[in-house]
């Protein structure tokens, strides 16, 4: 199973966003400044945008899903239950996963932005997908919910998971790292070898590396374990 970008380019505003590379099973973190091209890449990966140059190949990818950065764009139901049904999800199960038991008959737009995000993610993680593209899944989530979503992501490593995020502290264990530089997607490689070249690495990771300590991965647990290796 593979998603491949072959010399892909697409015009966004005044710049071209370029991407080449292969995404196999595992969690791929895509890092980049605001406006670098993360959301454009997410939309192309999910098949919602067609590149103007190059092509995107999906080998063995039958089912795919995109979680939009702004979940209100993805709403179709008038109640939480309708919304969950639109994903083919089990209503009570998804409500429980979203922490929204008792709100099933409410209008999704009556939820706070963080609650709506969690509902969207609970719907999406209620099913399995060959390719799962998550465009800023942590935006607006509180830290407790971020930790929970990290566990959901880590449980999907047999699928291709593309995770575009600005999150700095609460991250899942990942397999590969990609970074946008001047609107071009660069593969930084696998973990932990990729850390050395990661420009936008979280501050705690940078601090550890500056002390010569390389964590096994980027989750809170990995960073804590690495910090315990500091002797002084």
């Amino acid at each position, binding site marked *: 199973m593979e998603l491949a970008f072959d010399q892909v380019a697409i015009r966004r505003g*005044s710049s071209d966003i370029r991407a080449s590379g292969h995404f196999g099973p595992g969690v791929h973190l895509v890092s980049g400044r*605001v406006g670098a091209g993360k959301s454009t890449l997410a939309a192309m990966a999910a098949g919602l945008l067609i590149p103007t140059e190059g092509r995107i190949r999906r080998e063995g990818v039958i089912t795919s899903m995109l979680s939009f950065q702004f979940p209100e764009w993805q709403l179709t139901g008038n109640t939480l239950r309708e919304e969950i049904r639109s994903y083919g999800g089990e209503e009570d199960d998804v409500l429980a996963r979203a922490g929204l038991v008792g709100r099933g008959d409410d209008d999704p737009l009556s939820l706070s932005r963080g609650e709506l995000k969690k509902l969207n993610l609970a719907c999406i993680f209620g099913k399995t997908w060959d390719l799962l593209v998550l465009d800023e899944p942590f935006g607006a989530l509180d830290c407790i919910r971020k930790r929970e979503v990290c566990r959901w992501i880590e449980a999907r490593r047999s699928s291709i998971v593309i995770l575009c995020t600005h999150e700095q502290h609460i991250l899942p264990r990942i397999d590969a790292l990609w970074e946008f530089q001047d609107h071009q997607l660069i593969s930084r490689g696998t973990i932990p070898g990729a850390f050395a070249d990661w420009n936008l690495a979280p501050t705690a990771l940078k601090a550890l590396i500056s002390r010569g300590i390389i964590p096994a991965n980027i989750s809170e647990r990995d960073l804590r374990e690495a*910090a315990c290796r500091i002797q002084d």
Partner: protein
Amino acid sequence: MIHVTDLRFGILDIPSLILPAGHIVVIGPNGSGKTTFLRLLAGMEEPVQGSILLEGKAPGETRIGWVHEFPGQNSLFIRVGEELASPLRFHHLPCEGISRKVKEIAEQVGISHLLDRDLATLSGGEQVLTALATAMVSMPRTLILDEWDSHVDALTAGMLQEQLSRIGVPFVVQCTQNIDLAAAADTVVFLSGGRVKASGPPGEVFSGCEDSCWYPPAWRCREWNLPLIR
């Protein structure tokens, strides 16, 4: 001072809360009432019961600036300069005064070079700064920012906060999920289920949170004896 007394509105239930001037950061779990609280402070909602007084005045009687979570989707004009001028034009102020004020605020927020640009061509960070300047142009006593940092990268968020710290508005109130940002505030309000779980200086509010994810990551790094590298 901001005085909140016997407030009930939606999920919010705040018998008494007094906030001194300065940088006030509201944190809490999703659905705890942060945005509702900010909307009440801004006078965009009226409390069903109780009162909110900003320096002794109801929100509707004082000058308040509001920066929305999605500035790019809430601008009214095409050019940055027009957007900045709009609050003053809506007040029918004289033209010379408006252009002077627009220049002054643009300089203060560091966006003078953007005044002739189309808003649609700005980066995410520049759009947020334009929204900040537009909120500042009518010289608010209170500036309210609703998760303005939630869609930008860490470097951009740091730059935005630096600009914010320089603007000299007596009350700056923002809500965020960035706990490090709360740790650097003068006052933190921790809401949970519509109630104030804790409020006061960061040191007080976060003491006892050491084992939870609400503890500021930067403080944890400090305790790990790690230098902070930006």
